[in-house]
């Protein structure tokens, strides 16, 4: 059995330590939902921080917040998921490549390497244990969680630090807008569900979790399983796979009290999400959350934070959009996410 015993999250909402659970809601009116940063020097030696890019600082800070939240000094494994790693550093090198031979600064190259976040956390903690990084679109965080469960199952770890992190830059936003996946205009995030324009709204964030084999006073919820559904052929096939995932974990659809929807404000995709959930979980209460954090590869980290909070506190914050009648009890929550409706990811959490 695995438990979520600590959370450290930097997101576009007020989710830093000491904040109320998603209160008050943060409004964004810019091109994307930018993360609310902590004071990095609280968590990182200022001299070391000077050379670090923003993503690395967010990663280390959220990992340290997570460990503090769990009351743990040293994890037994560090696993990170990131769709794109440090976009800022990657862009710097791509820009310098146009002046090939003239660029001399190795730092962006080093930091653009996808495993930098996991390894910088290891260096900061002097943690010599298992260390890995997953880089697969909307499976990035779910792969971490699957690996974390394997590490616990093998008995080689008790406390695994696992998290997902991605950042947004204006250049990256421009490219994805040109691809037609994201909204071309800036919108108010709280209007996401009513604006009706094509495309999703972009976001970013970093969320780390202590996944532990032991329950304690810090426990938020149980992490039952994570699943990755690679390119199901249709909504009905996806729904069948969702049902199998629940069954494999000893549950029927009636036992899921709440589903956190993968909807991202792109009506065309949202319709498919709703079709899948209607087929697989016809009676389950639904909440939408991406108006709070935007869309990015590891957005399910934000969803997992929300689900763990709901299970611990036993209430649904008013900032989430409940799409149906509120559930009578909240014991099992299913998180659904997708990458452009081709890959689908699931996380199952329990009280």
């Amino acid at each position: 059995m695995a438990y979520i015993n600590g959370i450290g999250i930097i997101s576009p909402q007020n989710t830093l330590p000491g904040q109320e659970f998603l209160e008050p809601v943060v409004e964004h009116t810019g091109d994307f939902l930018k993360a609310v940063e902590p004071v990095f020097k609280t968590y990182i030696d200022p001299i070391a921080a000077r050379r670090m890019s923003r993503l690395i600082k967010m990663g280390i800070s959220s990992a340290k917040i997570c460990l503090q939240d769990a009351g743990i000094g040293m994890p037994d494994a560090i696993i990170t998921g990131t769709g794109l790693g440090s976009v800022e550093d990657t862009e710097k090198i791509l820009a310098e490549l146009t002046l090939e031979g003239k660029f001399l600064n190795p730092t962006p190259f080093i930091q653009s390497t996808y495993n930098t976040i996991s390894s910088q956390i290891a260096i900061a903690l002097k943690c010599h244990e298992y260390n890995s990084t997953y880089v697969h679109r909307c499976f990035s965080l779910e792969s971490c969680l699957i690996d974390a469960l394997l590490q616990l199952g093998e008995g080689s770890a008790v406390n695994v630090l696992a998290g997902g992190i991605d950042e947004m830059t204006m250049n990256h936003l421009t490219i994805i807008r040109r691809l037609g996946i994201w909204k071309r205009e800036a919108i108010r995030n709280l209007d996401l569900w009513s604006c009706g324009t094509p495309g999703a709204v972009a976001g970013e964030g970093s969320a780390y979790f202590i996944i532990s084999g032991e329950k304690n006073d810090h426990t938020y919820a149980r992490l039952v399983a994570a699943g990755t559904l690679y390119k199901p052929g249709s909504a009905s096939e996806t729904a069948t796979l969702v049902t199998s995932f629940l069954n494999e974990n000893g549950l029927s659809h009636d036992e899921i009290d709440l589903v956190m929807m993968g909807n991202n404000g792109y009506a065309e995709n949202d319709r498919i999400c709703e079709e899948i959930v209607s087929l697989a979980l016809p009676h389950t209460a639904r909440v939408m959350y991406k108006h709070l954090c935007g869309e990015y590869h590891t957005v399910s980290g934000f969803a997992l934070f929300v689900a763990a909070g709901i299970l611990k506190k036993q209430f649904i914050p008013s900032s989430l959009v409940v799409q149906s009648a509120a559930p009578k009890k909240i014991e099992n929550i299913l998180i659904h996410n997708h990458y452009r409706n081709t890959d689908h990811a699931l996380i199952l959490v329990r009280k």
Partner: protein
Amino acid sequence: MGHRVVITGYGIVSSIGLNAGDVLDSLIGGHSGIGGITRFETIHKGKLPLAEVKLSNKELVDHCGLRSVRNYTRTSLLGIAAAMQAAAMAGYAAGQELRTGLISATTVGGMDRSEDFYPPFLENTSKGRLREVVNHDCGDSTEKIAGFLGIRDFTTTISTACSSSANSLMLGAELIKAGMLDRVIAGGTDAVTRFTLNGFNTLMILDKEGCRPFDGNRAGLTIGEGAAFLVLETEENALKHGKPIYGILSGYGNANDAYHQTASSPEGTGAALAMKKALDMGTLLPADISYINVHGTGTQNNDLSEGVAVQNVFGEKVPPFSSTKSFTGHTLGAAGAIEAVISLLSIQQDAVFPNLRWSTPMKELYIKPVTELIHDASLKHVMSNSFGFGGNNSSLVLSKYIP
């Protein structure tokens, strides 16, 4: 312990051959794949070597029986070329009852095309052909391979710098042992790019003469490209289906050096930990290892740190060792799987392949690599090391299959 995870197929594409047979011929013949730069235009042409796969993207498309080069990055094409060999060897076909996963690893993903997209985009953000950039992320190459093979049950991508594909094999074995999958095709792929060439060049760790691992006068690594995949399944499964077994993945270990982002610790802490974990899992003693296919990049730092770690783990009885990066170059995210395949070839041939371009011992070490091909080596257990930036160190033990 429970189930033994065995290898029922493998495929490899590298600068020394487009399949396992050609790679073996090069290894036995002492033919290195390191040469001049032909893949792209760069100011380093004629100055720095690379270990390139000798096919263009168009030729790779034909080689794999694909229709168009349009949607594929070089990383995905190399991956498909290697994975299809592994799948065929293991008798994989889409739609079989066995739950099959694909785990790939890469460090550059679709960078080979993103770097073509960027210059016009930087001048004007409405410019640059989008099809050059849509395949940028690492997951793309994995999904292209999974799509090609029709794998549906599980897929993910690992990126832990130069140890990436060793970690793919570890995850594959874990998923099989946990009963989550019956069969996993695991490995990695990386193409040479101007991005990596220039990136490593800023670190001043590229040897102008081609890498000389464990040589006292070594001056850095040589970047290579390629891909390799291994098919893992339980011994029971393999026997039940009457499949030939080419080796056992009997141990693996992953540890972090936690020392510096790009430098290894002088005492090789993480490297030694990874090797010890791999031995422990296989319930093996250092003396059981008959050959080490070392990471051996040819950089000052790696070879010293790895050499010290090997001496610490194996004491005075260090088994024969060599770095086959002197043949293939450093294939980054693919290196772990490429060297796992080479280790299997070693086991099957009972041969230790030489460490090319070696002439001078390192004064800090009492060990030196094998520099001539050894036949009749009688190899039972081979260790394969893969160490990466960020202190991501992994070690595998591959063993001769004895029923």
